[in-house]
């Protein structure tokens, strides 16, 4: 039963972060843009969603608005890069730094109408807060499965559904003209220019999608944290990139699998690794260090695998 509990934890986390990782697939793998904005937009998504449900609004609408808010700030990063020529890493640092204020004021303004951000900085979901759990297929799926170690079945199903819907939408998008143009932009900007299109526009769209996905990921995470706190976004770059690179290097040679599927599996495997490490009895304060170490290992291994295959694009950070 204890094992079941662990499986449930990494599946839950894996599904949440698989959306973040799919966002990174767009910005990092396709566009070759190391995007640090997600540290901010992940939390922004959580804040927007948190405010919706805390104010008793429809949580699905909250999820969509979280996505949109992520898209907007992702586009800001893109604009800084494309229009002002600021380097990718700096753009991400600038926007995510600015978002610290936006997220802080957003919470206090949304909860108490306080624009000085002097009251509370957290949103906590109470028993009566209607989250996605309360707006999903009525009572068709039990909230907890008592016979199987009391695992929160409905939550898992919701995460799975949202993640799969995100995956399908992304797959469909990448098959459109605009999606193909995005792939061409990451591959050969000169070619895109020759098509009479400004490659900058594609970059902005790609970063918007990447951060929209990060925001959805953050919005889902509020369900496991029962609310929003201001440190939720920390470490998201590492989680997102590690999941992405684990997925694409482990299943790199599997032809029949869509890249988005590989990325989802990568996110789940990464979380499984973290759970195993925790089960070894290492205190939770060591979590982030272990995350960074595992990521480094994956980078090195991924780099070697890529070198054998001739390319190094996915292995560099």
């Amino acid at each position, binding site marked *: 039963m204890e094992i079941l509990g662990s499986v449930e934890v990494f599946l839950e986390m894996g599904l949440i972060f698989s959306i973040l990782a799919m966002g990174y697939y767009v910005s990092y793998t396709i566009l070759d843009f190391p995007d640090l904005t997600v540290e901010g937009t992940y939390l922004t998504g959580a804040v927007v969603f948190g405010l919706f449900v805390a104010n008793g609004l429809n949580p699905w609408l909250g999820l969509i608005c979280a996505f949109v808010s992520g898209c907007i700030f992702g586009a800001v990063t893109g604009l800084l890069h494309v229009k002002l020529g600021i380097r990718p890493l700096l753009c991400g640092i600038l926007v995510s730094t600015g978002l610290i204020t936006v997220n802080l004021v957003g919470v206090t303004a949304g909860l108490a109408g306080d624009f000085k951000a002097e009251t509370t900085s957290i949103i906590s979901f109470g028993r009566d807060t209607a989250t996605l759990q309360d707006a999903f297929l009525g009572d068709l799926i039990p909230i907890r499965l008592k016979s199987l170690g009391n695992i929160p079945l409905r939550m898992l199903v919701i995460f799975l559904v949202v993640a799969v819907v995100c995956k399908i939408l992304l797959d469909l998008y990448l*098959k*459109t003209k605009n999606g193909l143009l995005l*792939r061409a932009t990451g591959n050969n900007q000169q070619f895109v*220019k*020759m098509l*009479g299109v400004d490659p900058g526009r594609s970059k902005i769209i790609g970063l918007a999608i990447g951060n929209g996905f990060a925001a959805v990921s953050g919005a889902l995470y509020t369900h496991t944290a029962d609310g929003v706190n201001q440190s939720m976004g920390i470490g998201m770059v590492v989680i997102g990139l590690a999941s992405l690179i684990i997925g694409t290097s482990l299943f790199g040679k599997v032809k029949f699998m869509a890249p988005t599927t590989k990325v989802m599996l990568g996110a789940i495997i990464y979380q499984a690794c973290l759970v195993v490490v925790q089960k070894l009895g290492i205190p939770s304060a060591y979590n982030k260090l272990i995350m960074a170490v595992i990521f480094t290992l994956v980078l090195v291994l991924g780099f070697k695998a890529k070198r054998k295959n001739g390319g190094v694009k996915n292995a560099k950070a």
Partner: protein
Amino acid sequence: MLKLNNIYTSFAKGTVDEMKLFEDFNLTVNKGDFISIVGSNGSGKTTLLNLICGTLTPDSGSIVLKDKDITALPEYKRSRYIGRVFQDPKAGTCSELTVLENFALADNKNKCYALGRAINKKRIDYYKSLLAECNMGLEDRINTPIGSLSGGQRQAIALVLAGMTKVDLLILDEHTAALDPKAAETIMELTHRLVSEKGLTAVMVTHNLRFATDYGNRIIMMHGGRAILDKAGAEKDALQVTDLLGIFNEISIECGN
């Protein structure tokens, strides 16, 4: 058709290394011209193409294409009227996309890249017929990523893509220089066919003097930012590779080499 008026271009402007290349440079390209541009390194051939395509903007002067001043137009907007094939076979195609995907993108040039399905299955036969004309067996490799094709094959595809949608001007930037002699020959033949069949206006920079004399109706030799030789029609036809070599030698002696 295309006019370059009083062009001034310099590099490293405002520093001690300032190098003035074009000073009051003028060029008129007539409709239907197939111009070969030859000249030594640093004579301004590629700079000229970069000015036409918008990769560089002149310090002063104007560039007029079909009575429209395009001097201030960014490169990607000029691409609506201009097709370009580069020296590097990697530049003209997307290596991570398949042959079909490259065709689908180029087929949509000058239209909107919206949320419609990227690949129109009805067009595949048309793409295959274009590929079949290259005689490289490419029509059977439509689902192969471009990156696994050879340089010659990639350049052939780049050429077909550049000429697939209607362009006013085709720019060929040493497009056979990176290929082996056989592939270069094939690509040059393809170029000739494309230009004559579609009645394109083309400007080709080349170091291959035989290509320069054999193909096209006009030849320009550049030196130090000036066109020191500009011959068209019968005068151009009479020009031999040895004549060009002779002029090259004269220039080198002048320069003290």
